[in-house]
């Protein structure tokens, strides 16, 4: 699975992209967040306030209950501020 981070989430995690082997018990975006948060203090800090985090699976916005599978591209980022 490819996981992408943007803006301040990228800075907190320390990288913009990770390629990860998904544990069997991780089946949703919310479970992925919990698992990622356990991997480093930076990850934990990035996901500390989930109300400020948006998620996309395969480049579509999704909620935390959305399923994830091995081949997915999952991205986490703050609310957008373009325009």
């Amino acid at each position, binding site marked *: 699975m490819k996981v992408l981070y*943007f*803006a301040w989430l990228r800075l907190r995690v320390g990288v913009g992209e990770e390629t990860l082997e998904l544990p069997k018990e991780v089946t949703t975006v919310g479970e992925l967040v919990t698992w990622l948060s356990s991997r480093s203090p930076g990850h934990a800090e990035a996901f500390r306030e989930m109300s400020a985090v948006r998620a*996309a699976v395969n480049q579509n916005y999704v909620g935390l209950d959305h399923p994830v599978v091995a081949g997915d591209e999952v991205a986490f*980022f703050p*609310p*957008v*501020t*373009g*325009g």
Partner: protein
Amino acid sequence: MSIRVQAEDFDIGAEIAAMSAGNHDIGAIATFTGLMRDRNDGSGVSALTLEHYPGMTEKSLADIEAEANRRWPLSGSLVIHRYGRLEPGDRIVLVICASPHRGAAFEACQFLMDWLKTDAPFWKLEDTDEGDRWVESRESDAEAAARWKR
């Protein structure tokens, strides 16, 4: 219909001319250009770095543009959004909507800007008097986008 995500600047007059060239059914062209301001939220801002999500950003803009074309009878539409480092006065975004009549052109242009603001994956990092700062999303932008919800 087209969208472009690019580091380079754009030429508004040339884009308008290209959209209307040879199509004499166009009676109305509405455009919106967003520029970088040198102040934001009470601080002086000397530079802006726009980050985006290559792939999803283009997809998101194309989706929003397709929705605008479903809602209004447009003869043409264009969205250009820049990324990278910008300075005060630089152009950030351009939306152009052409239609036989002005109501559709105006509304589609506003719709595209409102949705782009809340949906397209771009993030602004400001270089301010008090240091670097990620721009926060605004409630007023969410409200502007909400009025188009169906």
